[in-house]
């Protein structure tokens, strides 16, 4: 294109989309969700294509599980969904118990439920904090909810530390029951903690719900239709936010969940705001379940197997089972094939975040770049589960 001097040319700008930009949202980016690479194809500010590259945290869980015994693996299992480590171990241990037809005592089942629900609250607090930080900016207003939510989460992690000894990754679940019992005074501390959290959730809702900026960033963003949700296989708050009334704790109850009364929140919007509403109601329902669990906690042993003296003590006979758990992100499943020895023959993790993330290439095109961050936050992936 040449412009001659002394010759006026009229230049018209044309945004007919003839130019596409490939932008990399690389494995290191401040959205704080982990190592995820999205190669975005942009037309202007609108995303027209997403190529999701994962695998930056592939830690060979499935191959390693064939070399580790049933006693050794649960604490490694907690590193798949590391934000909700209790529910990660739950699936593996349940699968081994299903094949070996190992009974779990009632007290252990209730302890498992209490731990899993406390973990759900802690995980949702982290989700809320990081999602709001993504949308608001780390040095701007976004850090407000993040710092408040982490303050609440630390109180729950204190409870876990007094129960198990670790803050984030536990080895609490064991084939046959749980590894530790609750110490004296733990039940009262737990009740006090969840009372405080119950009240503070109300404060967060008050900060966010009627906030026009929050609504502008979350309403009608990232709509997942019901048909797409079922076809791709997403689960958890994403599925319930799209109108499907499905919760494993209600539809296929495990570990005495049928003894507890709670409601399953379902929203029909399918957008980020609906998923946010589902998770906020799940906070309250988990608090209800914990209160019921602590009130009705039966006495008895915490494990049906004797204490471990050697790592190869637990042998599971030949068989296979698929055990699934309703984690904070959806259906966490463990497909286990046992061959009679102390180590599994094959173990497959059905990671909730792997299936949840697969929906991104279907819903992101059409949104702006800023919405990508909001959608990713509301999908809430944890890359230990995605890459295993």
């Amino acid at each position, binding site marked *: 294109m040449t412009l001659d001097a002394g010759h006026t040319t009229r230049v018209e700008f044309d945004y007919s989309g003839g130019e596409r930009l490939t932008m990399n949202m690389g494995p290191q980016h401040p959205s704080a969700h*982990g190592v995820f690479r999205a190669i975005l194809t942009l037309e202007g500010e609108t995303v027209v294509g997403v190529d999701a590259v994962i695998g*930056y945290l592939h830690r060979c869980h499935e191959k390693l599980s064939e070399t580790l015994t049933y006693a050794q693996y649960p604490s490694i299992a907690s590193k798949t969904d590391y934000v909700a480590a209790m529910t990660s171990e739950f699936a593996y241990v349940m699968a081994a118990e299903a094949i070996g037809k190992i009974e779990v005592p009632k007290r252990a089942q209730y302890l498992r439920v209490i731990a899993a629900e406390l973990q759900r609250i802690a995980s949702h607090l982290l989700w809320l904090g990081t999602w709001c930080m993504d949308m608001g900016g780390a040095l701007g207003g976004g850090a407000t909810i993040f710092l408040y939510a982490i303050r609440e989460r630390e109180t729950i992690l204190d409870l876990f530390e007094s129960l198990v000894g670790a803050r984030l990754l536990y080895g609490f679940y064991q084939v046959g029951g749980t590894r530790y019992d609750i110490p004296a005074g733990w039940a009262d501390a737990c009740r006090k903690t969840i009372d405080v959290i119950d009240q503070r959730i109300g404060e967060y809702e008050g900060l966010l719900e009627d906030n026009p900026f929050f609504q502008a960033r979350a309403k009608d963003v990232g709509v997942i239709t019901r048909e797409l949700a079922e076809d791709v296989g997403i689960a958890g708050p994403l599925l319930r936010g799209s109108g499907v009334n499905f919760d494993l704790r209600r539809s296929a109850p495990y570990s005495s969940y049928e003894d507890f009364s709670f409601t399953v929140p379902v929203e029909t919007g399918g957008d980020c705001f609906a998923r946010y509403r589902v998770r906020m109601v799940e906070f309250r329902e988990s608090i209800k379940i914990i209160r019921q669990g602590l009130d009705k906690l039966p006495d008895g042993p915490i494990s049906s197997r004797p204490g471990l003296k050697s790592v190869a003590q637990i042998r599971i006979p030949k068989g296979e089972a698929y055990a699934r758990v309703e984690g904070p992100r959806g259906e966490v499943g463990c497909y286990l094939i046992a061959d009679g020895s102390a180590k599994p023959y094959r173990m497959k993790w059905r990671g909730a975040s792997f299936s949840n993330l697969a929906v991104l290439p279907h819903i992101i095109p059409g949104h702006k770049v800023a919405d990508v961050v909001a959608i990713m936050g509301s999908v809430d992936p944890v890359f230990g589960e995605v890459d295993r």
Partner: protein
Amino acid sequence: MGLRVPGAHPRVEIKPPVPTIPAPIWRNIKDLQEWEQLHQKRPEGDKHSAAFESLTDGIHSFPGGFVVTTVADAFLNWARKSSVWPVTFGLACCAIEMMATFASRFDVERLGMVPWASPRHSDLMVVSGTVTIKMAPMLERIYDQMPDPKWAVSMGSCANSGGPFRHGYHVVKGVDRVIPVDVYVPGCPPPPESLLNGLLLLQDQIAHFRRTGRRAAPNPKVD
């Protein structure tokens, strides 16, 4: 966007080059021994520039000149250690503990550490989580983008040595096979208290940082 100039082509298509990631340089390296020798040499930016060297020589030629540079060193090191900006580089579970360290209860901002997303503006890389073979070139690229002087803290057993996943086929057995590390923080994951301990040890190291071309030895008081 196309500029339509009447009389010229109806649309000028500007195609940006499709970014290609260059092949990792280890393809040119014969074996691991050569790779480790490459990494044992310190980055050149640790040494001061020729201009600065001639300036300090000039100062030292005056009586009492050494006192000036020592006090200046101490002042600069104090400024450097009190404002270490880590690049947000969370990989796995340790990242959650790192976030907890940066958050309400264990606040590191009181130590002057502001987590900063851009590596070009940061001093410290806290490698928190397992380094996989797919991620290692990205990690090296981010580390290369950080300006000198820079430090690296290896957080957690996965970054120290591969951790519980050491025997996996896709896991790098420790981030010190990729970048030079100053402080190793053990744990799986290390609780925020441990990470704070590691960061304070790093601040002690920085206090002894001298622009003489060699990194300081670990704090001799810690044994």
